[in-house]
């Protein structure tokens, strides 16, 4: 069994990032203990289409009343789940959640002034196809204030949870939208140690897929850790 590449700590946030205040008491203080991969982490759960409903991927309809639609700019976010070797990850469970167009979450602990949208749940899930492709239809989420400082705002974002083939590839990240002026101001975004890596979690306007008179497309690829190549797989 070929092992995974070690996690690339040049692009991953440190545990304790003082500008993001909540990390202070929630960050392990001792170094992570490096383990060689064993089946405990080189295997992972397998999902199939029976686990999902046919409409789960479509946030425009999966919570809306018949004939109604959530309020906000109609967009879709699409891309591929790949590994560091640029190999597609097929059949990967991708889950997402987000605030509505006003920046309000459908969550019992969110008390922001912006109203709940009766036609928007704010979550979706799908499996990647054989080429690692996924797609979510949704509304553009709004920015919202958060209590990290006296006047701190989150850029518009969609949370993504992704499974690879190995439990060690498990990833939760956030998808930002290019050009958002809150990106460089946000302490959570800035936990990411390089501008290149921030760009890697910033969706790009995709005019080639934008549907005229209907929906704006954003492209967002998700890159999971790759595996060392073995001789029988060919490659370099």
């Amino acid at each position, binding site marked *: 069994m070929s092992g995974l590449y070690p996690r690339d700590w040049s692009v991953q946030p440190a545990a304790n990032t003082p500008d993001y205040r909540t990390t202070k008491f929630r960050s392990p203080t001792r170094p992570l203990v490096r383990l060689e991969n064993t089946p405990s982490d080189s295997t992972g759960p397998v999902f199939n289409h029976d686990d999902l409903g046919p409409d789960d991927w479509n946030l425009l309809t999966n919570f809306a009343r018949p004939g109604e639609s959530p309020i906000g700019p109609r967009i879709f976010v699409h891309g591929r789940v790949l590994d560091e*070797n640029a190999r597609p990850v097929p059949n990967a469970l991708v889950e997402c959640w987000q605030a509505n167009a006003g920046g309000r979450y459908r969550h019992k602990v969110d008390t922001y002034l912006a109203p709940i949208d009766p036609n928007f749940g704010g979550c979706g899930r799908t499996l990647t196809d054989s080429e690692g492709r996924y797609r979510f239809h949704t509304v553009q989420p709004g920015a919202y204030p958060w209590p990290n400082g006296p006047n701190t705002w989150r850029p518009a974002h969609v949370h993504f949870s992704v499974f690879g083939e190995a439990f060690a590839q498990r990833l939760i990240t956030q998808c930002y939208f290019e050009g958002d002026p809150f990106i460089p101001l946000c302490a959570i975004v800035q936990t990411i140690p390089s501008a290149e890596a921030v760009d890697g979690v910033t969706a790009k306007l995709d005019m080639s897929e934008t549907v005229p008179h209907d929906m704006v497309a954003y492209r967002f690829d998700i890159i999971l850790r790759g595996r060392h190549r073995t001789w029988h797989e060919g490659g370099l």
Partner: protein
Amino acid sequence: MTRPNKERVESASQTAGPYVHIGLAPTAAGFEIYEEAGRDIAGPNAEGERIRVEGVVWDGAGEPVRDALIEVWQPNAAGNYAPDGVEAGFRGWGRVICDFDTGEWAFETVRPGAKEGAPHLNLWIVARGINIGLHTRMYFPDATEDPVLTQLGARAHTLLATEQTTGVYRFDIRLQGTQETVFFDV
């Protein structure tokens, strides 16, 4: 070791945030939308001893992390990871959230076996204030002959559950402090 010849850069992790339930456990967020994944770890046909595991995730100020979500990945009683060599309906994966008031979490499963080393549950913890998901393992109180526990030396005990009553295990996870749980870079 030679540097891997990578073509793409790994996506950066970001915190799951306080609203993780919307995406991964929407009932807890306060609405019904679809059947949630990961409610049944072992399935109805799993062989072996049925167990319950419970605990709290503690932060460095001594407060429960009430918004944490924990995922479990484990083999069946024979030590096989799904999908190969397991009972029909055995996935070996699940997720559980902490109680919003007490921080207590609990799940039911079967006691895992192991092909090598001592039986254990693989756990992955995310929450607001955790920038990248934390991997750890829960071993049983009678664990012996395990290369990972040996490697950990004096910190190995932080990965040992205690048996509360027959078949009920407690595993508190401490993010900081003198008894800080061991987390892995796997």
